[in-house]
């Protein structure tokens, strides 16, 4: 009976399309900036980082939770209550760590929305195979530069 209840929970989450409880893995420049923005937008945010001092990057008005631990360890993700998360964003410096945590969130814990930051565009294919949404700052920035230089009319 318990198993059925858990499955129901996942279905319910998807249909409600909520984004209230967001876990951000990695409090670097990107992670902390995102955390600040989301916190301002009244979302409940949990930031995980291996180093306590990374949390200094969070703004004064940050109203969320911080956990100093290694997100690769499943215990950390459980403490962050990943099973209740609506969104998980992985923004560590290591693409492979991001992929692994993103998969754990998506395939094992059924988190409805999972986004991973990707540095190396060459790895994009594997993320697509695994159906994980990615954000590649390298590609996005290049696109922006291109638009400034030659304008948007040219095909990518």
């Amino acid at each position, binding site marked *: 009976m318990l198993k059925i209840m858990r499955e129901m929970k996942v279905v319910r989450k998807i249909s409600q399309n909520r984004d209230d409880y967001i876990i951000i893995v990695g409090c670097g420049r990107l992670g902390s900036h995102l955390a600040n923005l989301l916190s301002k937008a009244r979302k409940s945010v949990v930031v995980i980082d291996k180093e306590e001092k990374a949390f200094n990057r969070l703004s004064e008005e940050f109203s969320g939770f911080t956990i100093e631990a290694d997100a690769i360890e*499943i215990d950390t993700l459980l403490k962050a209550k990943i099973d209740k998360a609506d969104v998980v964003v992985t923004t560590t410096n290591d*693409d*492979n760590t991001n*992929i692994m945590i993103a*998969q754990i969130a998506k395939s094992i814990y059924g988190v409805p929305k999972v986004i991973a930051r990707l540095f190396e565009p060459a790895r994009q294919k*594997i993320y697509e195979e*695994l159906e994980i949404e990615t954000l590649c700052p390298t590609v996005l920035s290049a696109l922006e530069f291109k638009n400034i230089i030659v304008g948007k009319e040219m095909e990518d």
Partner: protein
Amino acid sequence: MNIIIVGGGKKVHFLTKSFISKGYRVTIVNNDKDYCKKLARMHDANIVYGDGTKPYILEDAGIAYSHMVIALTPKDPDNLVICQIAEKIYKIKRTFAVVNDPKNIDIFKKLGIDTVISTSDIISSLIEQKVSIDDITNLIPIEEGKIAIMEMEMNIDYPIIDKKLSEITLPKDAIVGCIIRGNNTVIPRGDTIIQRGDRLIVLSLAAAQPDVLKSIRGRVD
């Protein structure tokens, strides 16, 4: 058979030696330039310098015509990604990932990696076996410890000595795979008589091990 090993360190070194001696073709992918040079000197294998978690590096290593990929880096996420790239993009059927954190065994399996090996688990279980039972060697943990292969030397006080195999009651989840007698290998049949000094190779489900020990030695420990 063409094998790609991604990683470094002693494990890769000895594995490579072993594979090459069996006639396999080995390509090693490693991210340390100096170590790559060293590997090239030591082994008759292809060495590719680069990050094995990038698809184009694996392509350089000839993944397109490889039969097996072994991910042996010190970082579990890297090993995960290597195996997934191999399976999903290059359709490699046999991939092995080594995990350093035993807790990741379960996670890797849930994420679709078939064969996951935790070296610390294997080592600690081998040590445990060695410490508790002297004349029995647990050879190979297969299927994460569900199947056990044991080599047992027949001591004079074992109750099964001088009996026919058909007369011995072994648990139903165990068989005597073969008997090493001096320099010969005997494939046992019902009328094979167990002799003192024989080395029996016994396969059993791990759960049946205590019963197997009891049947053969007359005691468990």
